[in-house]
């Protein structure tokens, strides 16, 4: 299926257009000059997605991307039968792409990327673009049926009912943009219902670098998430991993075993060439369960400093940084909860 993208850009668009065409997209460039013209194209043009540069004012236009996106979003949310289209924001300024990559400050864009990052990794971002476009199509095709969209037939993976409650509310149930974005940020990109490969490795206690990792990982293929966005994000259903360990491998509790014990059990089950995850400096427990948000390295929450980065939904697990990341002046330090900030101050004294 073709993917048609409208690229709104006031500077020279040639290189990005060429790169995206190379990835199989049909590209059309639009130089914004008059607000109404851009808006009409955006809302009535038959595009699968819009790629828009944050700053549009180098020529005659007096508006930036958020202004036009806001108008388009309002139009499609309030008019019946209006078409919803994914909008991807690019910017040369890191603070802008970061700001809009945060769900709490962004009610406009499906994705916010630094221009440089896009140019450096066209393949990765092309997969993301396509998966978002596909998600919109599939959500509409499936008539917003959540279990179909998540490929969770007969609710075998025991989806948290609060996700369903949220997504069947008036606000979401007819708005493809809200629906898609909620799943993207609050389910796919949050540890809880689903976990990524780093957290999976943490829970199994096995280093991703070991030769036998792929074989072990593939043993959990039945727990793999195969719903929307799964082409762009490798995810597993967390509950299913624990159940599988229990039923198939007779492991009553992964959580209580440390990494060496977990590896010992997997060795006993015939998995070879797997090594336990080594601990980070300043971490003392190897009962790994999550990852440090900064270093993306396994930690046991007992060794983590809890973050207050955003309001969590009941199905989302707490986020932490490791003590090592804190000692390395992690950007996340400002999000550490006050109670753990004090603990970090005590640790600083201890290790001085």
């Amino acid at each position: 299926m073709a993917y048609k993208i409208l690229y709104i850009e006031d500077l020279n668009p040639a290189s990005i257009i060429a790169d995206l065409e190379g990835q199989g997209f049909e590209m059309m460039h639009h130089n914004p000059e008059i607000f109404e013209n851009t808006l009409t194209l955006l809302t009535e043009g038959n595009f699968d997605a819009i790629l828009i540069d944050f700053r549009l004012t180098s020529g005659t236009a007096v508006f930036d991307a958020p202004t036009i996106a806001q108008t388009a979003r309002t139009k499609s949310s309030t008019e019946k039968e209006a078409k919803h289209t994914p909008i991807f924001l690019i910017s040369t300024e890191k603070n802008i792409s970061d700001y809009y990559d945060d769900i709490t400050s962004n009610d406009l864009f499906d994705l916010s990327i630094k221009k440089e990052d896009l140019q450096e990794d066209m393949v990765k971002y092309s997969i993301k673009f396509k998966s978002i476009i596909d998600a919109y199509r599939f959500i509409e095709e499936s008539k917003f049926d959540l279990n179909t969209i998540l490929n969770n037939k007969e609710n075998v993976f025991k989806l948290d009912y609060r996700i369903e409650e949220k997504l069947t509310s008036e606000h979401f149930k007819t708005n493809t943009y809200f629906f898609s974005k909620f799943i993207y940020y609050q389910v796919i990109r949050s540890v809880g219902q689903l976990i990524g490969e780093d957290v999976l490795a943490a829970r199994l206690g096995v280093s991703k670098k070991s030769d036998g990792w792929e074989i072990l990982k593939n043993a959990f293929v039945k727990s793999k998430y195969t719903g929307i966005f799964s082409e762009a994000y490798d995810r597993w259903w967390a509950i299913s991993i624990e159940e599988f360990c229990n039923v198939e491998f007779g492991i009553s509790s992964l959580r209580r075993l440390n990494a060496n014990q977990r590896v010992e059990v997997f060795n006993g089950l015939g998995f070879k060439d797997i090594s336990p995850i080594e601990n980070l400096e300043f971490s003392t427990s190897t009962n790994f369960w999550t990852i440090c948000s900064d270093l993306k390295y396994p930690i046991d929450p007992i060794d983590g400093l809890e973050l207050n980065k955003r309001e969590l939904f009941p199905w989302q697990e707490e986020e932490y940084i490791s003590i090592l990341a804190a000692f390395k002046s992690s950007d996340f330090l400002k999000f550490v909860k006050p109670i753990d900030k004090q603990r970090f101050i005590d640790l600083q004294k201890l290790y001085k």
Partner: protein
Amino acid sequence: MSWELWKFVRDLTTFIKLIEKHEISIDKSKLYDLEKKLTGSKKYYVETRDIAIHIYKKIADTKPPGITKMSIFFSHTCEFNEATDIKLNDPVKANYYFYFQINGYGNNVSKKEYINCWRLDQDIISAASKYTHPYYHFQAGGRELDYKDTGELILLAAPRLPHPPMDLFLGIHFILNNYMSTKDYPELKKMFDSYEYQEIIKRAQERMWVPYFNSFFAGNTNLDYSFLKVFPLYLQ
């Protein structure tokens, strides 16, 4: 009556909010999972595994003294048998499970790990036991210790100490009261003092403790909670 599922679920929701409000270091995800499982369920079947409670303050007289932090993993199953006449029998089914494991961690240099665990068992009537088995009893140890190098300590399953049964709330209440000092964790005291918390614990006591303590009184009709079953060492 206090064994209604909706009451338990409502208490669980309030309990999670209290933990959040007072920032007690209990892993809430397992509690949310349980809340999710019980919402819409028709059966009073409480099952949860490995609720992690993190403790960063030293507990007086801990040996070895180098232990600087501990994780306690609490697991629990409690199923209510609706067919039971509460006046005559214990409504808690025989799949009752109450276990907590304590993982202690040394400092950054030694990286040594220490473990201990406790279980509260419901005695299942089988062939005459060779040792005293109070109907509900606490004992140290558990299968999980099989993985451990036991060093110089001797670990025995005895004694089995008579103790009333506990449910999820009483279990967490027990752990918090025993392992976290209200001096080190002033928020804990505030939570214990709050009306909502006390009501949750009182309702749990009514379910789990009133029949147990009634066994000490004349006129008790409950066959499971008879004085001699609860406290078999007593000579008549």
